């Protein structure tokens, strides 16, 4: 097990190295001055010389790369070219906001995706299966932004039930601490915390549900197919033959074996989710990474693009690694295969 974790970590570090070299070289690949591109400090700024020196621009490429990595780990990510705001400070409050959305959406998808897939599989080709399959196929084919607009039109504009912008009604004056609105409300000592929490949940409902559909439909289809395949296996037939009830066959044999096939796809579902988080954040004016990243592209804010790109890819890599480790830990057979032992 330890060797597998180390191997995963090794792959993670190598990929991270390649990504960091790519991110570092973006400073040269973007048009303009590489020092400004990476630090956000313009040439006419009084600190420009000091910044150039701190970032190793008087040395060769290797020295510059090392200085870049040092700045990266010291959270010294430079400032935005547009408004001069510190990228780390901006990231610090935006990342939890994005994470809040994606974790809740992923949780929702994991909570109801596999059960629905199993439900469909045990009613294979019956009406329940057909309804679930129909829903998951249509969910798969509807673009998220269109679904979001439709939901806004129906639930917010027509019915007036839900708000459509931001994390919470600003009149609540929730002090900004972590960036995640639920945490901020929980740790604050503001009046009407209960109402504020309700308001925040209402703000969250539409984006989370819409965002959850992306991994949800994927998980439903994968679980359903895996269950159907496992059901046809001879050991399942054998279990039935030994006289086990269909419930215990399902619980002891089908589900664990089907989940083994689904688990590796969770990281795919997560990276799909992250891409869609960016879109959903813009539609719902959610103050997360997506809005920030897309605006930086519009405004050619190179230091922000450079950092945000690296951080997003590292996040997806990290989730991928953790999924793999969990997969190996949870399923001994996979572990033995990887170790080539019996």
């Amino acid at each position: 097990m330890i060797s597998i974790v180390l191997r995963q970590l090794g792959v993670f570090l190598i990929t991270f190295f390649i990504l960091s070299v790519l991110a570092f070289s973006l400073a040269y690949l973007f048009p303009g001055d590489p020092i400004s591109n990476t630090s956000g400090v313009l040439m006419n700024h009084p600190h420009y010389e000091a910044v150039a020196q701190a970032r190793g621009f008087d040395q060769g490429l290797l020295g510059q790369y090392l200085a870049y990595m040092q700045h990266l780990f010291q959270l010294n990510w430079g400032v935005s070219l547009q408004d001069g705001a510190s990228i780390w400070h901006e990231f610090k409050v935006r990342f939890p906001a994005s994470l809040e959305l994606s974790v809740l959406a992923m949780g929702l998808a994991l909570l109801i995706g596999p059960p629905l897939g199993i439900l469909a599989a045990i009613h294979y080709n019956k009406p329940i299966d057909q309804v679930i399959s129909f829903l998951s196929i249509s969910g798969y084919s509807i673009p998220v932004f269109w679904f979001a607009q439709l939901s806004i039109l129906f639930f917010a504009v027509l019915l007036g039930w839900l708000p459509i912008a931001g994390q919470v009604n600003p009149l609540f004056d929730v002090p900004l601490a972590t960036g995640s609105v639920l945490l901020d409300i929980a740790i604050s000592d503001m009046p009407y915390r209960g109402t504020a929490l309700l308001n925040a949940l209402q703000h969250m409902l539409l984006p989370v549900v819409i965002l959850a559909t992306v991994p949800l439909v994927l998980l439903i289809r994968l679980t359903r197919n895996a269950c159907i395949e496992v059901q046809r296996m001879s050991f399942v037939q054998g279990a039935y033959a030994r006289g086990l009830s269909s419930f215990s066959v399902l619980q002891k044999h089908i589900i664990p074996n089907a989940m083994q096939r689904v688990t590796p796809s969770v990281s795919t579902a997560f990276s799909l989710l992250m891409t869609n988080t960016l879109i959903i954040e813009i539609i719902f004016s959610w103050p997360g990474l997506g809005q920030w990243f897309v605006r930086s592209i519009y405004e050619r804010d190179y230091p922000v693009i450079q950092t945000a790109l690296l951080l997003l890819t590292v996040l997806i890599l990290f989730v991928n690694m953790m999924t793999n480790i969990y997969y190996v830990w949870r399923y001994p057979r996979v572990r033995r295969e990887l170790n080539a032992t019996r």
Partner: protein
Amino acid sequence: MITKVKRFFASAPLLLTLSACGPALPPNTNGVLYCSEGNPESFNPQMVTSATTLDMTSLQLYDTLVEYDAAKGSLQPGLATDWQISDDGHTYEFTLRENVAFHHTDYFTPSRPFNAEDVLFSFQRWLDPEHPYHSVSGGRYPFFRATRLDQLIASISAPRPNVVRIQLHQPDSSLMSTLSSSFAVILSAEYGQQLLDKGLAPHIDQRPIGTGPFKFRHFRPDVSVYYQAHQEHWRGAPASDSLVFRITPSNHKRMLMLLTGDCDISPYPPARDIAWLQQRDDMNVQQSLSPNTAFWAFNTEVPPFDNPLVRKALSHAIDRDALIHSVYHDHAVRADSILPHTSWAQLALPDAYQYDPEKARALLAEAGYADGFSMDIWALPVQRSYNPNPRLMAEQIQSYLAQIGVTANIVSYEWRSFRRLLAQGKHDSVLIGWSADHSDPDNFFRPILTCAAKRSINNRALWCNAEFDALVTAAIRTTDISKRQLLYERAQKLLAEQVPIVPLAHSIRYQVSRRTVRNMLPPSLSGIRFHAVYSDHGLMEEAAHD
């Protein structure tokens, strides 16, 4: 597993109750949500140019010495209760209001009320290059440079703690108007000194302290600006306990948020939705004439435009009412003078620029161009508040000119090259405009039509007329309003005879608010005042129960 699924479906009604009764609000709030078009550039209006920033900062956080009342068209006391102008027009003396409290926030506790020291501090900041704050936050004061106020004021002093004296180099009757503009705000000298001692000078523009009806609490870029009521405001506490600007650049998003109650007030609704919004019972659409003029300027230095007859002919060749319909979707009024209808000095001369192709042809023949000629029309490559679609306007003018035998080519460059080439005078004619910075009519004459303006490149017609210069200079040297009116009328008649520019339109600014918002006034030149505005959520409940 099946029970698990059942349990999930059992929890679904709970999710629905989350939403069933509409968004939850803080109890007893009367706070106002204003959806703004962008982030504020700074919290100090002295340093900005954009109307968006001005709307969000100056009238809410600060006060000015005098205020311009658009409804009455006159100046009202602000932080100055009274003012005297010396007979020679060189010295202005202001008596200051007493017991005006500065904001008390978690980062500043004022120890004294407002006095002359604060006025000196605020004015010296942009006036005196040696002032410790002059170069803080970039050190550019575009309004004061554009109006040349920094060159007009010789000195400013405080003979007594509640009196301020301003000495001018030469008499200038537009001074009071520039002082009433939202740029000429009063900051706190005590706060400035405290920040200077702590070495935190730039904070003065980021964590503002003023005397206005609202005080700053926090600002999160791209999300919102939060203000709290300043209970000790000298006019009395504002009607609402908080004022929030939500930053929403897209006008469609702003309108959706208005419909869902995520905003109470939104400026600049999408043009094609205005008629629909006006029909809704739950929305209140307000409008006001913007203090701007779109015009068509001829380069009076190149033939044939050096001939007034040609310029006059072209002015009669175009149907401006049709342009207002097609280019502005009727969200503008026809300009019959360079001055908008809201100015006290305006003299409407509708006949001077009337659509009359016969007369245009006759004038062209008289000027010796009976067979017409070929010319360029430069169309602004960007949208401006005074012109939503310069390109479309140019195309329509092109077709009007074809009817009198003039061939027009439309020219458009990228914005920066456009401005550079325009400044070099490479154009035949250009569709451009002017937005006023303050209420004085002088702002429409001296900055854009005089010989001095020709040197400072804002005179797009490159027109220099000694008689006109004499008239507008005389008007600025006197403070007698009836004398000024006569002089400006003569200046406008001269413009109608010489036609260096053809005034086209003054645009209309719209603002939509929910019916629950009370005491909202239409936007005016000086910005939006929120002192009396509050949101009546009780009213919304009532409407829901009907």
